[in-house]
């Protein structure tokens, strides 16, 4: 048997798994876009987007102000990777759409766009297990539908354009409140040029049994996708939201910069599941934060497999007594990828609890980074945080980093943080090989075992998909 240590050191051997998982989403169709804001970003771009969307004046003013904030903020390279400097904001197309109103049935969706989503299996999944689906194609949703039985309970599931136009009172109250424009450079960029994304409202006491799903598809080259999602779960309600995403592999970089705000009112529960599988030329720079009121619970389940660089730290502001926040994070970084992910837990009320479990796997020359923040300010009591980060390194030249920041004031709270770095034990691989598994199968099994307790928290369909992706990624990662 070739030893594991030897196998990985052959850095010159091309990593055979790079890009395998992307094949499913790696295709593009020529689409005749009716609306195109052109290349580059200026006030004119914003006016174009605002005019096409026929937006209210306050939204246009909001966008303009955000553009100024974006331009005034420096790139955060004093702590983040310098790879960010490779984003050329002047070469990006900020708005591409074939129309502003999503279709309610797949038959109405233009043929070329429909073909895309059929190939990705979205209509089929909708029939099988979803309460509602929104399918975004570049800047706008091509399709958006919610099952009648869910709609009858008063649940609103529309895209951001419709949400702001048709339910301004409901959404304006929270829009930009959880993540203000100036939160960071990319939230400002999103606030200036946002388009698409979901607006969801769940009325008091309504428990949406099946998940709502959004699928984000980038089709065009040099494109920037800036969806904006706001989910409001009213008192005592429950909702699960899932998002998936793919893009074809272009030779030039693509930017995806979303803002996702969650509001869980008293006793509400929101579970937000992401399976990010962008092509590995996509810069995925996303700001996600939830506001949990008293006794509410917000749980982010975040799985990052694709992209060139992902920077994403889902957070929960624990605003009400006994609120609970949780982040479950799985990241897999392969050759040419940097998964810079983590969590933020801001405790702002007594007896709030938070839990962060992060597992990352670095394959080949991939780099996985955990970056976290836990903040417990003065005069709170009974707050607790638990953070666990485990990193698995597959090859000798794989890389992992951990950068948590924890602030605790006062003597009535407790936090604990633990992180470990390890590799798959040779004994384990040897044991499995003795029982007839190939080295690749054994590695795959070991990696699946490493994330198994987290993967089980995903809905069945997603955890099966995740397992399949990991099998593919691990194939040939050794030997």
């Amino acid at each position, binding site marked *: 048997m070739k030893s594991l240590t030897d196998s990985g050191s052959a850095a010159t051997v091309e990593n055979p798994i790079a890009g395998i998982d992307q094949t499913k989403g790696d295709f593009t169709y020529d689409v005749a876009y009716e609306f195109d804001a052109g290349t580059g970003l200026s006030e004119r771009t914003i006016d174009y987007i605002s005019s096409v969307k026929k937006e209210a004046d306050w939204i246009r003013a909001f966008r303009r102000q955000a553009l100024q904030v974006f331009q005034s903020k420096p790139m955060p390279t004093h702590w983040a990777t310098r790879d960010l400097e490779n984003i050329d904001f002047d070469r990006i197309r900020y708005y591409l759409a074939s129309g502003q109103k999503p279709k309610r049935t797949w038959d109405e969706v233009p043929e070329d766009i429909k073909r895309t989503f059929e190939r990705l299996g979205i209509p089929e999944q909708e029939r099988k297990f979803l309460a509602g689906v929104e399918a975004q194609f570049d800047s706008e949703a091509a399709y958006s539908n919610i099952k009648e039985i869910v709609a009858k309970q008063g649940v609103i599931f529309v895209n951001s354009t419709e949400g702001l136009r048709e339910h301004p009172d409901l959404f304006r109250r929270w829009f930009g409140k959880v993540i203000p424009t100036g939160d960071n450079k990319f939230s400002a960029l999103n606030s200036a040029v946002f388009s698409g994304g979901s607006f969801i409202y769940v009325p008091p006491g309504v428990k949406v049994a099946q998940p709502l799903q959004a699928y984000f598809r980038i089709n065009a080259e040099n494109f920037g996708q800036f969806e904006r999602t706001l989910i409001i779960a009213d008192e005592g309600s429950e909702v699960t939201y899932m998002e998936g995403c793919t893009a074809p592999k272009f030779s030039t970089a693509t930017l995806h910069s979303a803002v996702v705000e969650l509001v869980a009112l008293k006793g509400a529960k929101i579970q937000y599941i992401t399976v990010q599988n962008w092509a590995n030329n996509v810069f995925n720079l996303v700001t996600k934060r939830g506001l949990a009121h008293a006794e509410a619970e917000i749980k982010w389940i975040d799985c990052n497999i694709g992209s060139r660089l992902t920077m994403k730290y889902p957070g929960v502001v624990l605003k009400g007594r006994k609120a609970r926040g949780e982040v479950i994070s799985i990241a897999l970084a392969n050759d040419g990828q940097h998964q810079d992910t983590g969590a933020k837990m801001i405790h702002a009320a007594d007896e709030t609890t938070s839990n962060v479990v992060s597992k990352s796997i670095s394959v080949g020359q991939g780099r996985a980074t955990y970056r976290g923040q836990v903040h417990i300010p003065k*005069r709170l009591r009974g707050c607790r945080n638990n953070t666990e980060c485990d990193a698995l390194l597959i090859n000798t030249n794989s890389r992992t980093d*951990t950068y948590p920041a924890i602030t605790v004031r006062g003597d009535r709270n407790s936090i604990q943080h633990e992180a470990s770095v390890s590799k798959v034990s040779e004994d384990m691989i040897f044991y499995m090989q003795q029982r007839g598994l190939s080295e690749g199968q054994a590695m795959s099994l070991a990696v699946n075992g490493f994330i198994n307790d987290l993967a089980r928290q995903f809905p069945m369909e997603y955890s099966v998909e995740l397992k399949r992706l990991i099998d593919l990624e691990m194939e040939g990662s050794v030997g």
Partner: protein
Amino acid sequence: MTTTTAPLPPGTVGAFTRAAFEAHLASLPPLPEWWLARKRAAFEHFAALPLPVRNDEAWRFSNVSGLTLDGFAPPATARAVPFASIGIRKAARLIFANGRLFSREILDSNLERRGVVVDTIQNALREHGDLVRDHLLAQPARLGSDKFSALHQAFLVDGAFVYAPRGVEVELPIGIFSFALGDQAATFPHTLVVADEGARVTVIDYFGSQDDTERQLAIGANDLYAGHGARITYVGKQDWSHQALALQSNSTVVRRDACVQSLNVHLGARQARHESHSQLQAPGAISEMLSLTVARGDQEFDQRTLQIHQAPHTRSDLLYKNALLQRARTIFSGLIVVDPDAQKTDAYQSNRNLMLSDEAEANSLPGLEIQANDVRCTHGATTSRIDSEQEFYLQARGITKRAADELLTFGFFEEVLNRLSQDDLHTALRTLIQSKFSGEKVIR
């Protein structure tokens, strides 16, 4: 010589102007050319660098507004120093007051016969020039204090030089005392320890002031170099005036099969930053980094550490414990770096904060950067209060709450003190910490 350069902006150099630097050089005996050149370069570097600002990542959570260099002066020569006994037998003792040698006593007559050197850096520059040149401030400042390290090098007057030659084991510790005396005094203490192949040496580095109301600036550094198979035990006890701004930077280099154990006890200063940088350069190298802090009043203790594994089969183990009272703040920012070829690294990093007040604040940034896969790296950070069940248990036996809390805090520290192999050192440190905890001044 360059003496005519544009005037320096006052905010960035404070009292340490070009004129002050030239006056400092004039006060020194003739220096070797290489050392003079390094001091001049250091001054230019210091003057060119800005003071840290709030969004410097290396100063995250630090109170950067407290880092003022204004109003300090080169201190007067001291005529007397406070009584300083640390309650243990020593092989030699060096006492520095305001950066200059006050007294030197060789207590173990065998030392010099065996080739052990315990002397000042000024003497060593003349007599052991090559060793000093190789190891004095030879490692880069990597933890954010470049400006202060440069200031230290530029204004360094004198310090301690300890050398243990090949195969020599020095049984008793060597005590080095550095005092800052007088209001507005600025001092730059330095301790350089070189242990040659297979040598063993223990150094106790004590820092203190006459009284706790004097506003002082202390920018110190120490270099520990453990050659092949050598073992250095270093204990630093920082007890500066409570009005002092103190920055201390440590560089530890560990060669093949060598071991350095360092324990820093932090008690004094208004704002104290301690940077500790351990390089494990060859297989079998071990670095054990320990720290105990009692933070009270409005004190801020800011500790930054770096454990760099540059070779396979090396081990580092860090345990930093802070007890926080009143309105004190602590910052622990640690980083374990495993270089791409440093397989079989075993690295551990742990920061434990014990909160004894509702107004205290503890910040933890335990970090890892791992570029090799066959490693065992773990870190942990916890912040919590005293276990209420343990407290109750003691109170139920008639012990007052205050006494119970003290006992439990000592218990919290005991895990670190137990790592020391010398019993009398352990006892002396426990006494020192107890005096601090009870707020009494001061048993040394």
